[in-house]
């Protein structure tokens, strides 16, 4: 329970080392977006190389320096860029940036608590994230350059500096940064779990929680159970790199000599990495799905269809996500029987995902929809989740994976289903809860412009990749000009790169809108969307404790939108009934079945 002592106006403790969940949410958001912007620039840079291979871009040499000598990108620097792009986007933007922001902002406000269970741990969680971000960015500037073995950093490539320069100091800093990042994530997740279980207000049973909270809750559980395994994998890699152990290394001849390591297997690393790596994609996705449920429901003025099925399917996804990791390893040479087990579990996970899609569609059916930018992005998420999800049926089937594994087919799949879905969810969350974050309204016209540019150009970037994959084009290739069989596809690359540049420009519109509106946007009312959840009952101005006086009591589930009586009139005269409104005499709570 945070204390309510009167704070002196201390800048350091109000803005920098705040223990208030709302400030911490903003800190995660800004840092996440800044890192995301770096990741976006990186992808634009390597798309320039792929679209116009070997072309000299002298203007870029100005700030890329030795990475782009004579204006042409160096091959191993290309690999650094794709590695860092993946690392930054998956972890820094879509895990810390997405979960950190919305779990922090919404958990206390939506469950009816004054703050998180521990404000201090929460603050530490942010500052560890900040430090790990700084270290990760520093790794770009060390000798040998940043880590270059792919965001999956398989050893021996990531263990041996003689295999690629980025596996020297750059990789060391990567490992340090990620270790601190994992600490940040674990502290945060523990806080979220404890708060949700223990600090709900009176009447807020688990089955009256908004689906955002369920999503953040299950995400936090996934994190707590899987991130420590990545930490273990990273520590063993540190030992192999620096202390002469052989967990992952054996029988290696490189740079003219036989290395001293024997007995280890790189496949051990792959198992440990993917044991986190697969739940990680759901850690990225679930919060976005939760946000979408909330936005679609409140903006269509309808209850989310199948509230319990939505919870059940998120639980099924969370559980199954722990037993599918091997589908990233079908071709490692592991026992084929294992491959079959993982195909079975992987294709199973399609079922709860399909259930969620159908529930979203049914929520939209016969709704009354307001297309704020948040709604647009949520609809976009449903589209990308479908489009990216169905190709999972190919990749998850081991026999079919043989020919598309590590090709552009995979890149198309995960960018659409995870990358686009998660970033769309994040944008939807920012637009929808902007009033709560900054007390101001963000501009709708610029927001819808941002949406349209983004959805058109991002589908333009990633959809063609499925064809490239089916043509056998491998991923992580600096250029395709060494292969006659790929010559007739270089023009596709050009098209993709043009769309990528367009997408990047679209995000500039968002950044402008975001910054302008945060400082100069019109002041927000307390409940601009006429929504039911508790955060809209808390005053617009930020102060510790979230509510003046007592925390509101809750009497119903959050999805009483357009609830009508026997005559077809809205009960209580409005198309929404906040959770704080007591049930009428013969009224049943919609959450009860």
């Amino acid at each position, binding site marked *: 329970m945070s204390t309510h002592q009167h704070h002196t106006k201390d800048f350091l403790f109000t803005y920098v080392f705040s223990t208030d969940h709302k400030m911490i949410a903003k800190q995660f958001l800004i840092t996440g977006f800044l890192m995301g912007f770096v990741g976006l620039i990186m992808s634009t840079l390597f798309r320039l190389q792929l679209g116009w291979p070997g072309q000299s871009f002298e203007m870029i040499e100005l700030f890329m320096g030795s990475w782009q000598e004579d204006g042409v990108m160096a091959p191993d620097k290309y690999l650094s860029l794709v590695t860092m792009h993946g690392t930054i986007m998956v972890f820094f933007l879509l895990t810390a940036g997405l979960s950190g922001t919305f779990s922090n902002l919404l958990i206390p406000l939506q469950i009816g608590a004054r703050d998180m269970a521990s404000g201090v741990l929460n603050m530490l969680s942010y500052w560890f994230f900040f430090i790990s971000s700084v270290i990760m960015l520093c790794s770009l500037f060390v000798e040998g350059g940043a880590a270059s073995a792919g965001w999956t950093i398989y050893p021996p490539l990531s263990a041996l500096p003689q295999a690629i320069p980025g596996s020297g100091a750059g990789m060391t800093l990567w490992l340090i940064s990620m270790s601190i990042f994992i600490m940040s994530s674990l502290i945060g997740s523990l806080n979220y779990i404890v708060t949700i279980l223990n600090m709900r207000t009176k009447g807020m049973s688990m089955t009256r929680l908004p689906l955002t909270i369920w999503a953040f809750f299950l995400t936090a559980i996934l994190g707590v159970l899987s991130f420590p395994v990545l930490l273990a994998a990273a520590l063993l890699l540190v030992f192999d790199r620096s202390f002469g152990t052989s967990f992952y290394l054996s029988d290696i001849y490189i740079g003219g000599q036989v290395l001293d390591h024997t007995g280890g297997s790189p496949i051990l690393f792959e198992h440990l990495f993917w044991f986190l790596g697969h739940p990680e994609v759901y850690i990225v996705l679930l919060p976005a799905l939760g946000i979408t449920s909330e936005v679609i429901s409140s903006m269509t003025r309808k209850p989310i269809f199948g509230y319990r099925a939505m919870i059940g399917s998120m639980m099924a996804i969370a559980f199954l996500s722990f037993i599918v990791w091997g589908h990233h390893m079908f071709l490692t040479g592991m026992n084929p029987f294992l491959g079959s087990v993982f195909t079975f579990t992987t294709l199973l996970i399609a079922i709860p995902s399909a259930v969620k899609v159908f529930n979203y569609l049914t929520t*939209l059916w016969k709704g009354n929809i307001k297309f704020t930018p948040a709604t647009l992005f949520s609809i976009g998420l449903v589209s990308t989740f479908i489009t990216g999800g169905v190709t999972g049926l190919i990749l998850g089937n081991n026999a079919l994976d043989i020919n598309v594994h590590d090709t552009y087919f995979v890149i198309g799949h995960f960018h659409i289903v995870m990358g686009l879905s998660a970033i769309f969810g994040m944008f939807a969350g920012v637009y929808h809860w902007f009033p709560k974050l900054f007390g101001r309204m963000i501009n709708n016209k610029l927001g819808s412009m941002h949406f349209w540019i983004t959805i058109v150009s991002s589908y333009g970037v990633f959809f063609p990749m499925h064809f490239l994959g089916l043509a056998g084009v491998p991923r992580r290739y600096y250029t395709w000009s060494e292969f006659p069989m790929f010559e007739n596809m270089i023009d596709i690359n050009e098209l993709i790169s043009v769309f990528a540049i367009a997408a990047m420009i679209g995000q500039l519109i968002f950044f402008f809108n975001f910054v302008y509106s945060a400082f100069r946007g019109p002041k927000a009312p307390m409940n601009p969307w006429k929504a039911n959840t508790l955060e809209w009952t808390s005053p617009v101005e930020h102060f510790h404790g979230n509510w003046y006086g007592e925390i509101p009591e809750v009497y119903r589930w959050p999805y009483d939108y357009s609830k009508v009586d026997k005559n077809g009139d809205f009960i209580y005269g409005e198309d929404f009934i906040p959770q704080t409104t007591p049930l009428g005499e013969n009224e049943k709570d919609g959450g009860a079945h």
Partner: protein
Amino acid sequence: MMTIIVVIAVILVVITASQLLKLAELRAKSKGELIYELTQKENKMQGLLLLLFFFAFMGFFVWQIVAWGDRILPVSASEHGEDTDFLMSLTLYIITPVFIITNALLFWFSYKYAYDPKRKALFFSHSNKLEMVWTIAPALVLTVLILMGLNNWNKITTPIAQEEEHILIELTAMQFNWTARYAGEDKKLGRSHVTLIEGVNGTGVDTLDPSSKDDKIVKGEFHLPVGVPVQFVFRSLDVIHSAFFPHFRSQMNCVPGVVTQFNFVPSRTTEEMRDITNNEDFNYILLCNKICGAAHYNMQMDIIVESQEDYDIWLAEQKGL
């Protein structure tokens, strides 16, 4: 100079945009409106745009198939590849309608149910029956795909029995090229280890092992006889690589410290494939498909599939250690 101009231009754009936004807000206020309230007109426009987007999206999808459909891999050059391709086509024929229909519903509903203050949304919160339907239907489809896939996979991943007629080839991956070692008549590879690498013996073959007497080392291009099963074993000397034979629908990682295997039966000669693809310069290819260092993008070896006679002639010319 250019940089300064760009910076000034950006600042001017930002200032202009800010002023325009402020103007828009004041204009709305003067009309008694709130700028952040969507007007009916704006809302209906977004609904329409969503529907139009769906058609543009589908148009883009079809255009890609028409423009690039013939650039994907040609017909399978291996026997098991025919089965894999069939399953791939079947899966595509299942997911494509799902993709189209669900996206159609999404964007159609968005358009049709755009906000109308005169209408009430329908309070329809759950239906166990519907949940059953769309849990069981996907489950059934997936069961079929799983069973077919696993059946396929079992056939593909079973190593060739020693007694069966086959050729045994070891492919050793290293930064940044491949070495093939043919096991010869005895169908046994001589023992090898990294500690034995020296000079010409680039993959560490134990020349004292009797089995390596008839082993042949091949670099740059290797040949296979059509219709004869070939059993590959894969090694790596330094980092993880991956042996990708896209035309043969085969791929297997090469892991240092571990020996992996894969096999297939080449079913079309290089000549045949040159006819099929209408390309005199066509060649089968082995390429690296797991990030392995700076020159990962150029680690390849040509593969020629030919008649048994031509293969025998070629093999006789290859040298051992």
